[in-house]
């Protein structure tokens, strides 16, 4: 397929049909991770470390194994000994197999409260829980460390005695908690800062936050006597589950089939696994299917949240508002193992703007908290929060409109990207202009209210996907992909296929296939699915159209190039022909005579995903008596390439904005003096609820991707980037003073405004 189709040519793309998986999801029929069960299934349970940092001296499971009803017990020794170098590509992160195995079951040390230590499978959940009490683990408790700066001190307890900071000119000889350092330099930032007319120098902090998907992880594993196995679970990628589970347990990939169930939210958090290898071992040992499910407390304490940060920034500009210099240092609190860290932060921090002289340094710091994992635009919201707050201060100091300041400095197509290659068809300027002319931007504010704006960007990914499109005998179609549907991707796949095949969308059934039923596909993440898998859907559908045309040609006895495809039927253009058109059903019902079934499998691996940009406008009202901040109006403006199903694109922008609002105002991990998480439930880890919020207005800016058949750009991640600073800038304006530390909880805001007056 070549060229982007013009909008007016489109019949289905851009409309808002009911999603194909919708009816089951509103009636309770859809089967999510926790809903699956098998006859004879056992219930698993996991014993967890009560210590933030300890050596495991011994684990005695004999009494537990002897309890009536217990069928299997597992510890780390049941896993395959892994090579230190084993790594699996999970899209936005790499999964280190040795570390992943220790997050399933600890090896010789525990690094955080809640880390799994042993597991049992029994005939009931009650017996499994009772068996955990019978496991005797002897620990030698070690001093622990949580905060970034404490973990970086010379005398800090070192978590891993083999962690020697990577990325230094010379690798250090002593182990430390700094897993890596990174530096990116352009021009001479120090000299340019000296010459700048205005400089803002600030220190910003953010806390560790959780993705907060409402569905806890859950799986069922069943290993047969010949070693073949199946896993049923929800995840962001069944192929990722297969790779990691097989690597940890030492299985051949061909012996393991992973069946994707519906996923109840992931936001990056389900791009790795914590249960499946354990369930496999328990099933192998017991000879029965085993179910393992996390409780909410376990989700908070033992799955990977997004990292906290300490960020220092000096941003300089001329008096005309041209940014000239930035010096930035980013420290990411990555948790127990080298998790989701500063890499994308260094890359994204300054990426909205053209700045000639920059020096950005970053480091990842491990400490005794759960190992971090991807969280929606992983690591970008923090770094861009700092930059967008500083931009607001520069605009204020110059007396310049904050959008105008961004327009003066924003990237345009052809400007150098982070890698140096020129940027493609980016639409930051169009997005800024749309925000500026949005009625919200000029609406009057009430007393104690403030308005903040912030921009943000995310790079977006492409990557490997396999798609199969098959035509049924009645002319309907099946589109099989390997990408779990987190928020409506079945709808967008079906719509794109229907548009290319020129048949009604209701005749296209999209399915998410298991790992034995379709070729490899990278997980759903990096905002890649509608872009990359969608491209494969378009190409496969186009190939099917070619086959349909050639079959019609055969039926008519003409050349294939004498057939055109319109409105789901073949039309003969051979000179003098008076053949009636052949509908897709007529062609499909004759395949036994024309060469067999009609289908096409396409693999893609695009590397030309385009970054997208968001500009958010936020109004808050500050209660000066309590320090409470409420968001009273919010608008998310976003460059989306082209919206296949606008409702679900708006939904991404709205959901991302609200997660960002939660990050800005409420959410944070809290630890007690022993390093145990103090707020491991939804009551105390306070995510936004409906009564906290106004409607979230959206404005989709459509500047199509020039090489995607429908112009798609990734949309899912960028909306979580701007809100942190949009909210903070709004609070700063409402309060008449600046804020630098998230979350902006009432006690913090109250203390700040009262210390000022």
């Amino acid at each position, binding site marked *: 397929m070549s060229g982007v189709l013009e909008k007016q040519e489109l019949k289905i793309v851009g409309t*808002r049909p*009911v*999603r194909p*998986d*919708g*009816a089951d*999801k*509103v*009636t*309770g*029929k*859809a*089967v*999510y991770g*926790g*809903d699956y*069960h098998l006859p004879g299934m056992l219930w698993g349970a996991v014993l967890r470390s009560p210590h933030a940092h300890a050596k495991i001296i011994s684990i005695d499971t004999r009494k537990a194994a002897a309890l009536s009803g217990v069928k299997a017990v597992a510890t780390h020794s049941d896993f395959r000994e892994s090579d230190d170098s084993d790594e699996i590509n999970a899209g936005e992160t790499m999964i280190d197999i040795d570390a992943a195995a220790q997050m399933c079951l600890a090896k010789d040390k525990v690094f955080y409260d809640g880390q799994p230590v042993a597991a049992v499978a029994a005939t009931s959940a*009650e017996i499994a829980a009772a068996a955990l009490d019978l496991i005797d683990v002897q620990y030698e408790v070690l001093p622990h460390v949580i905060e970034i700066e404490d973990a970086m001190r010379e005398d800090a307890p070192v978590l891993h005695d083999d962690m020697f900071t990577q990325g230094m000119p010379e690798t250090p000889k002593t182990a430390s908690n700094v897993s890596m350092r990174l530096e990116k330099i352009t021009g001479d930032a120090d000299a340019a800062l000296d010459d700048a007319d205005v400089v803002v120098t600030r220190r910003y902090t953010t806390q560790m936050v959780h*993705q*907060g*998907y*409402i*569905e*806890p992880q859950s799986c069922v594993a069943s290993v047969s006597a010949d070693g073949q196995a199946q896993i049923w679970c929800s995840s962001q990628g069944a192929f990722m589950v297969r790779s990691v589970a097989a690597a940890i347990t030492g299985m051949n990939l061909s012996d393991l089939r992973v069946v994707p169930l*519906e*996923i*109840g*939210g*992931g*936001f990056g958090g389900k791009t790795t696994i914590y249960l499946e290898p354990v369930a496999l071992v328990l099933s192998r040992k017991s000879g029965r299917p085993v179910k393992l499910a996390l*409780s*909410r407390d376990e989700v908070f304490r033992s799955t990977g949240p997004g990292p906290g940060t300490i960020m220092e920034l000096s941003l300089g500009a001329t008096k005309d508002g041209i940014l000239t210099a930035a010096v930035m240092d980013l420290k990411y609190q990555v948790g127990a193992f080298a998790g989701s860290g500063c890499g994308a932060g260094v890359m994204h921090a300054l990426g909205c703007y053209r700045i000639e002289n920059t020096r950005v340094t970053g480091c990842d710091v491990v400490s005794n908290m759960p190992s971090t994992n991807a969280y929606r635009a992983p690591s970008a919201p923090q770094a861009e929060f700092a930059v967008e707050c500083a931009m607001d201060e520069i605009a204020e100091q110059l007396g310049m409109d904050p959008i105008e300041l961004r327009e003066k400095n924003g990237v345009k197509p052809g400007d150098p990207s982070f890698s140096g290659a020129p940027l493609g068809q980016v639409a930051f300027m169009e997005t800024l202009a749309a925000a500026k002319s949005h009625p919200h931007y000029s609406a009057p504010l009430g007393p104690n209210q403030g308005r903040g704006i912030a921009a943000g960007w995310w790079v977006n990914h492409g990557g490997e996907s396999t798609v199969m499109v098959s035509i049924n005998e009645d002319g309907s179609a099946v589109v099989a992909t390997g990408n779990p549907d*987190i*928020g*409506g991707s079945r709808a967008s796949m079906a719509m794109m296929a229907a548009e290319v095949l020129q048949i009604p969308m209701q005749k296209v059934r999209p399915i998410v296939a298991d790992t034995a039923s379709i070729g490899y596909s990278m997980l759903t993440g990096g905002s890649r699915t509608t872009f990359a898998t969608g491209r494969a859907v378009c190409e496969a559908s186009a190939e099917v159209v070619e086959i349909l045309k050639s079959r019609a040609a055969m039926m008519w006895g003409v050349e294939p190039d004498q057939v055109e495809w319109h409105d789901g039927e073949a039309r003969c253009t051979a000179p003098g022909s008076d053949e009636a058109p052949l509908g897709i059903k007529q062609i499909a019902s004759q395949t036994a005579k024309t060469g067999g079934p009609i289908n096409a499998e396409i693999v893609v691996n695009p590397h030309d995903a385009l970054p997208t940009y968001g500009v958010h406008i936020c109004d808050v009202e500050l209660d000066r008596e309590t320090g409470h901040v409420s968001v009273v109006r919010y608008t998310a403006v976003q460059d989306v390439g082209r919206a296949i*199903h606008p*409702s*679900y694109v*708006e*939904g*991404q922008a*709205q*959901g*991302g*904005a*609200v*997660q960002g609002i939660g990050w800005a105002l409420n959410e944070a991990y809290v630890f007690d003096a022993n390093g145990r998480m103090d707020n491991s*439930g*939804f*009551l105390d880890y306070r*995510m*936004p*609820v*409906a*009564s*906290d*919020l106004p*409607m*979230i207005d959206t404005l989709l800016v459509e500047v199509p991707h020039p090489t995607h058949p429908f112009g798609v750009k990734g949309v899912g991640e960028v909306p979580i980037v701007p809100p942190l600073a949009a909210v903070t800038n709004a609070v700063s304006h409402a309060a008449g003073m600046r804020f630098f530390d998230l979350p902006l909880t009432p006690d913090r805001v109250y203390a700040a405004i009262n210390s000022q007056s």
Partner: protein
Amino acid sequence: MSTVHIHTTVNGDPVDFLSEPHTSLLNVLRDKLDLTGSKEGCGSGDCGACSVMLDGELVCSCLVLAPEAEGRRIETIEGMAQEGQLHPLQQKFLDLGALQCGFCTPGFLVAAKALLERNPDPTEEETRYWLAGNLCRCTGYDKIIRAVMDTAAEMRQERVSA
């Protein structure tokens, strides 16, 4: 542990089951009665994914002990569509794209139906407060609130014209 024999009505049908006294109604629905439409997001009354009606009152089934259901009427998401016909709220959620992952959806629908039975003309604020016990991490609530209020308006309209 001694089990208790419990008699209930679930979505209009008489249902008997045996349960440990400390088992939650949610676990009975999901694990014993195969009604997995009610979800467990927290097990502590904080997310609303397990919402069901007990004798016409909206409850978190994770906070109800199975024996408390003795002799009572339980309605779950599985009973919301009647004779294959979606309830107007279910249809509106589909039409407006008020679900992304869909995991919170059964809880929201059960809670929203309870709201409209009690208050056919809720304001946006009333709707937001009534649904404040239901967490959704995907949608930012915007389309959910619109779907509930639109459905309320349509159902009022139908009542007028009926």
